């Protein structure tokens, strides 16, 4: 059973459509990215799945429970990292954890203490447990908010901009933690972000949304392939062998064009994964001496910008 199933989700605020017929599934152990600019409808989608607001149309299930019909069962199974850390600044890190642990149903004190210790240790916050949240750095608050979302061991995690405002080191720690939670602990994770780096490094599947509507869905790799520029293979040869090999390269299937740029050949290909070894083999057989081979991949950023501009 998928952790999350959204089917034609729609949310309107007055005449404004914040989420426009979104459908997607997030399997156990998968990180699904909702990628889009500010105001794209990412946070609204997270709020619908967390049973904080109701959809205007469409339906969604979390662990098989309908968000509109069985909200309390959904809430028990979901860990939410909201857009803001949403921590009580006058309470200590430990007091915050304790309140949420009990609110999420961990009623046995010893069990609660053990879980809190485990999480605060993991996030390296145990030594700061007695400090009021107001005294913690932004990165620490974000880690504490993630620890809070995990306190009841939810099978589904909704993470809204988990690395927003963090320094590169803290952002990496959070990304590592998300990877671990999906791969090792097999949680279904919905990650809402406008940071392409997060989507590229963490997500198995990505849905790019703009003004509430899905503009593309797929793996980061498939989106790159589908919407990136035609791949160009760069081969640098020993000076003098460039003219020798060009005809041999053109005879390789899926090679579309070959242009020389000094000792470098730029080879346009249809299918770089299968054609690259053939091209290199043809060069060697034709007597060329290869110094380097490089296949620059189009980035997800390029794909994203192209889609968002197209949608606008």
């Amino acid at each position, binding site marked *: 059973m998928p952790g999350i199933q959204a089917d034609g989700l729609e949310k309107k605020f007055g005449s404004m459509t914040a989420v426009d017929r979104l459908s997607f599934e997030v399997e156990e152990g998968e990180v699904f990215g909702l990628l889009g600019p500010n105001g794209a409808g990412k946070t609204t989608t997270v*709020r619908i799945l*967390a*049973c904080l607001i109701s959809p205007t149309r469409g339906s969604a299930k979390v662990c098989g429970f309908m968000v509109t019909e069985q909200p309390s069962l959904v809430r028990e199974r979901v860990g*939410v990292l909201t*857009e803001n850390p*949403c921590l*009580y600044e006058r309470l200590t890190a430990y007091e915050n954890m304790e309140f949420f642990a*009990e609110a999420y149903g961990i009623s046995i004190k010893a069990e609660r203490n053990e879980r809190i210790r485990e999480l605060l240790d993991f996030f390296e916050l145990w030594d700061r447990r007695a400090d009021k949240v107001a005294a913690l750095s932004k990165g620490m608050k974000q880690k504490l908010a993630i620890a809070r979302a995990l306190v009841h061991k939810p099978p589904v995690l909704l993470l809204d901009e988990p690395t927003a405002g963090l320094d590169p080191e803290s952002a990496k720690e959070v990304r590592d933690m998300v990877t671990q939670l999906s791969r090792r602990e097999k949680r279904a994770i919905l990650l809402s972000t406008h940071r392409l780096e997060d989507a590229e490094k963490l997500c198995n599947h990505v849905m790019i949304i703009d003004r509430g509507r899905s503009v593309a869905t797929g793996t980061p790799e498939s989106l790159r392939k589908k919407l990136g520029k035609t791949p160009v293979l760069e081969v640098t040869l020993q000076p003098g062998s460039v003219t020798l090999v060009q005809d041999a390269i053109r005879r390789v299937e899926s090679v579309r064009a070959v242009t020389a740029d000094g000792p470098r050949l730029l080879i346009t290909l249809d299918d770089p994964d299968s054609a690259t070894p053939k091209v290199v083999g043809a060069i060697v057989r034709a007597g060329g001496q290869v110094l380097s081979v490089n296949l620059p991949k189009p980035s997800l950023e390029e794909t994203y910008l192209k889609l968002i501009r197209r949608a606008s």
Partner: protein
Amino acid sequence: MVRLRKVALVFLKDWLEIRRNGEVLLPLLIVPLLFAVMLPIIAVLPTLAIPSWASSEGLLTLVKALPGQVREQIAGMTGQQAIVYIMALYLFAPVFLIIPIMASSVIASDSFAGEKERKTIEALLATPLSDGEMLLGKMLVSFAPAVIVTAAAFAVYSVVVDYLTFSMFGGRLLFPNTIWLSLIFGLSPSLAFADIGLTVIISARVKGVKEAQQISALLLIPLVAAVLGQASGAMALDPSLVTTTTMLLVAFDIIIFVASVKAFGRGRILARLS
């Protein structure tokens, strides 16, 4: 279904926050203390310092304007005794009711509108706690201190008045008295509850603590009217009036509680935040 353990959880969390919030705690302690100590001094000291005031034209005018019931109570008293009795037992009674309104308004605004202002409400609403558990926990954390502070202030007020007037009234204690007891333990709690309900409804619509406090202070208007009514003799705070007002307030409390339950829905709160 409302689980009492979860209600207590919300109550204790909010109470911990209130205890560490000087902006809430200071008015909660200082205003009642000032009322409890300053009002008796205002009632007694002028008559001791300027004995002629007790037989002045102003006092006679005030006494004439008082309802017959009060005039009966002060019949046979000296001018000094009469003025102290009128002020301490009669005129200051509605003024004292400011305490439960102030206390409940300050705490309830911080508890309800404060969660929105500090952006902590979303994580709270994402928990499996029911709307009823959150609402009840938060209402109780506003109600209990308001009632306790009012009762404590009344105890201090009684002691100070009795201490200052003990010899003046020949060893007779003015407090506790029936009207004040019904005022403190009947009218004050129902007034505090009404204010909390009003604050919940207002907090669902405003974004900040200050706005919520300012609007919920509207309940002070009937109180000011009561003070003026007492001073002008238009009304007398007798046991029957206190009982009737308390009963009316309890009915109002029920209506406002139903309205506050409706106002405190997850969807409504977040729709306004979105």
